[in-house]
């Protein structure tokens, strides 16, 4: 258990640093934190009585592998990604971090809550994107690598016009 407790501290630190990196738009640094097998998944949510049915199997807004994310970052760097011109000013607040072991010795499961505040454009009021993340982190000698992220957006109807920011 001590190990899990330590891992919890490290994982929370990882998520906080990752959030700062994304807020400061250091996308290449963030990309380096991704495992080659990264599965970045933003499911579609619908209004249903049973929680399990809120996420129809296989339905997603985004489901990226590393090559997709590489394209997204190249796009953001192109200066022609109009959804992010000027880039959104963001604040990611990450909390409620829970860490559990998995069947794989080098992989831990990290669940967290993240509130992403995003002010787009110039003077419009910002959008709030509330997310519950279910992550898998691979533990390596160089620290954690993000192996899987399932970002469950609280909204069924997204209240920001696009997902031009990473969750």
């Amino acid at each position, binding site marked *: 258990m001590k190990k899990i407790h330590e891992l919890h501290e490290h994982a929370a630190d990882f998520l906080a640093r990752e959030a700062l990196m994304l807020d400061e738009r250091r996308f290449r640094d963030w990309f380096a934190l991704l495992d080659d097998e990264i599965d970045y998944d*933003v499911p*579609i949510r*619908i*209004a*249903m*009585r049973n929680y399990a049915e809120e996420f*129809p199997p*296989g*339905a*997603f*807004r*985004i*489901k*990226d*592998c590393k*090559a*997709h994310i*590489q*394209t*997204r970052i*190249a*796009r953001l760097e*192109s200066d*022609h*990604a*109009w*959804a*992010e*011109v000027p880039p959104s000013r963001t604040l990611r607040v990450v909390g409620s971090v829970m860490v559990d072991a998995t069947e794989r010795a080098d992989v831990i499961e990290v669940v967290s809550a993240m509130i992403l505040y995003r002010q787009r*454009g110039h003077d*419009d*009021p910002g959008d709030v994107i509330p997310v519950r993340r279910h992550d898998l982190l691979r533990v390596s000698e160089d620290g954690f690598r993000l192996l899987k992220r399932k970002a469950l957006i609280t909204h*069924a*109807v*997204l*209240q*920001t*016009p*696009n*997902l*031009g920011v990473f969750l």
Partner: protein
Amino acid sequence: MINYDLIYPGNPDQYLDDLCERVSQGMDEGLLPVEVFRDDAVFRAEMERIFTRNWIFVAHTSEIPEKGDYVLRRIGIDKVIVTRDDDDQINVLLNHCRHRGSELCHQDKGNTRHFKCPYHGWVYRNNGDWAGAPHLKDAYGGPLDKKEWSLLRAAKVEAIHGFVFASLSEDVPPLREYLGGAAWMFDALFGLHPDGMKVLKEPERFVVKADWKSGAENFSGDAYHVSTAHLSASLSEFIPGVNQVSSLASGYDFGNGNSFIGHALPELIAPMFDLWGYPPEYRDQFDLSQLDEVQLEMLKKVPPTIGTVFPNFSFLRFPQPDVPGAMPIPFTSIRMWQPVAPGVMELWNYELEYAFLPESFHDKAYMAGQFGFGSGGIFEQDDTAVWEGIAKVAASPWALSKGMRLHYQQKRGGPDPDWKGPGEFHPSIYGEYSQERFWRRWVKEMTEGKRASKHAEPCDDQGGCQ
């Protein structure tokens, strides 16, 4: 933020009459008054004159395959339940109880034989008929008339290749006739296999601070924006040739606000991209025997890739890699530009595919569609941003006080005189002729709809209020 409308002499009715006249005259000159994109009076009139009296797309039959299945959808700003009832008929019902008006259906989809109101417990069958109420004998002395007190029901519901359209007005021609040349196009797009098409996953929805007409107009004939708005797709090396997409585009215009863009895909990408680039082993299973010669030629040379059916249904079928660097495969996305408020829409986006194709192909097509045109899609993101500005200028005191009008004056090469299909075929997409027709259709509905709503029969308490 204030939803600024110009203070206009006269009443809103007069204002709308004048605006329709300005749009009509403007189109003669290739100019569009900006206020159509965000204006309270315009929005209210659109709800009354367009959405309650035209065929509106609501769902695909594959979303409600079993008896009792339903999905919650919209017609204009109304929430409607689209059901497949116990008799296998499709109904489009207003989601409000006839007793006190509460909402009955609170799930986006499901299967049920009855809808029960959470307020006093009135119950309706899945065809909308009134079915019962608690304490029936004490409260009412016996059952109510099941038709008289049924849920409000769309006057007409018809499907074409599984695409279900509903009209709240009885006074519409049959769907095929109404669609005109667009129905011929649906045959070529969605009628290539007897098993038909099926929806792959649930629609995704996102609120965009732009007017519904910006999306509809764009998909009606705007290939011109691609080389600028979507240049990042080229710069990121995802689709290197994206800046050529408008020069190799043509237009199929049916003259009534229904129009399609076609792309010379074999020329644009490679010879094998006739029939949108469906892989040979699959296209061999297509049944093209129902198509006429013009349709066959069209699919070989300039397949329809994008289109709008007035008012707010659009589709997109384009070859795109599912993963960067992979061979492009066609995906088919449908979108509804759902009005929410003046200058605000909810964009509904989802993919369909031919049902007979293997799941592995469905998965790839879904991936390709969502990576390009979902809420996180690398194309669609930028549309949502550029369209926002249109809704802003439409509420600009400066623009309105100067009568600012937008430029629809591209050079026109004219239609192909040898075209044998319905409507017109324009070899070049430049010219903004389809957009002009979209706006003329809009004026027509706003004008004819005014007369229709003035003469509406009072509701006789029958379920349909027909």
